[in-house]
């Protein structure tokens, strides 16, 4: 486009006589707002009505528990990949066929950014993002989740595991 071209002049449409009177237009506006009153509401009454996230939702990360034992083999990949350095794993040996298990597995939920890298990197599908989004604590110490809070039976995570298998 050359710069010496004149910009197109846009003429504003003049208001009609009735529009200039304001009052009919105000009445039209009133009809609209009054009609809105009887439309269905968008508000969700939160503590009573809870949102069930879809399987693709990344909630707080949890450890998958199968037959009473976590799948985790304490390889430490999640701790390595975690960009927020929120995960701490200490492994040890066990009699079970998986041979290694985490003695200590802590996620600092004050640092976690819900990126899902730990889930992506896990070779055992042992750490996944759950559908839980209600995280409240009253002290910093409470924000560090140990194994007791992280373990979740695989039955509860069926949707997410299914989703991961289909889309990964």
């Amino acid at each position, binding site marked *: 486009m050359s710069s010496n071209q004149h910009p197109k002049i846009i003429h504003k449409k003049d208001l009609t006589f009735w529009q200039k009177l304001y*009052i009919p237009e*105000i009445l039209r*506006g*009133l009809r*609209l*707002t*009054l009609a*809105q*009153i009887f*439309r*269905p*509401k*968008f*508000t969700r*009454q939160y503590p009573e009505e809870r949102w069930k996230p879809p399987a693709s939702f990344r909630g707080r990360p949890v450890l998958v528990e199968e037959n009473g034992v976590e799948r985790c083999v304490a390889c430490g990949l999640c701790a390595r990949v975690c960009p927020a350095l929120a995960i701490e794993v200490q492994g040890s040996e066990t009699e079970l066929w998986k041979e290694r298990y985490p003695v200590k597995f802590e996620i600092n939920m004050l640092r976690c950014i819900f990126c899902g890298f730990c889930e992506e990197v896990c070779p055992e599908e042992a750490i996944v993002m759950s559908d839980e989004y209600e995280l409240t604590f009253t002290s910093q110490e409470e924000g560090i989740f140990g194994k007791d809070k992280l373990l979740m039976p695989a039955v509860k995570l069926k949707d997410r595991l299914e989703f991961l298998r289909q889309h990964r």
Partner: protein
Amino acid sequence: MRNPEMFISLIKIVVVLVIMLTAVAYIVLLERRLAAAIQNRIGPNRVGWQGFLQPLADVLKLVLKEDIVPKSANKFIHDLAPVISISVALTTFAVVPFGDHITLFGQNIKLQIASVNVGILYILALTSLGVYGVTLSGWASNNKYSLLGGLRSSAQMISYELAMGLSIIGVVMLAGSLELDKIVQAQAGWKWNIFLQPIGFITFVVAAFAETNRLPFDLPEAEPELVAGYHTEYSGLKFGLFYLSEYANMLTSCAIITTLFLGGWQLPFLDGLGLPDFWLSLFHVGAFCLKVGVVLLFFIVIRWTIPRFRYDQLMNLGWKVMLPLTIANLLATGFVILLFE
């Protein structure tokens, strides 16, 4: 009590004040719920049944907040301004007749706090006093946004006071009296001034919106431009007083609109029902409240319907449209009265 008249007046003042303050609290709730409904939300419904204790919680919150006065503010005037606002908002109601007469305990009581023979002048004088609260608060805060809000408010009041006064004069000419009581009686039957003075009604309602700083004309506190306008530097109970006075002003304006244009406490078919006197006067009060309620709903819904005027548009409307319109209306009314008498 040696003077029963005074005693009765005192009781009336207390009763009206209590009812008014309660009503104001619930207008706030009504406005919030209605605003929510218009925006497809639900609104405050947690405190008490359907949010009925919300006003109480709001007041409690405001009382518990710290009262902050800016360092460079004029302390005395900063304190004085909300008091002016609220006292003007509440005292204006004194001359509004909310019913005819009622006989209680053998006393014939007039349902109006003060029957002033220049009632309309009283109203006009007090409403123009109300602007001092806003302007002084804007000046005393020593904040540019507050000052701009205060200045806008005074300019707006001057422009709309004239149109307001002139649109009332048409009503006064028809009734032949400045007394609000007489004006109501002159509108007996269906002779409501809204039908006799439609242009006066429209201009008065528009001016009332401007006087109460309600939305199409809420330039003194236009939040996108002026933070919160004149009450930017107010907090706690003093902010609460401004808030209260805004809604009290709204209630009073609605009552005045009802009195001047919608026949006050009269409903045409009520007198024909042959009710006993006591019940008739109660129904009159009920009719008055009903009409005020309808006008209030109109005020609230308009707030969520029309966007704010630009400042030049506001001035144009006031001086170039409203003023000539009211004067033309005045002349026309005068001619019609001359022709028919």
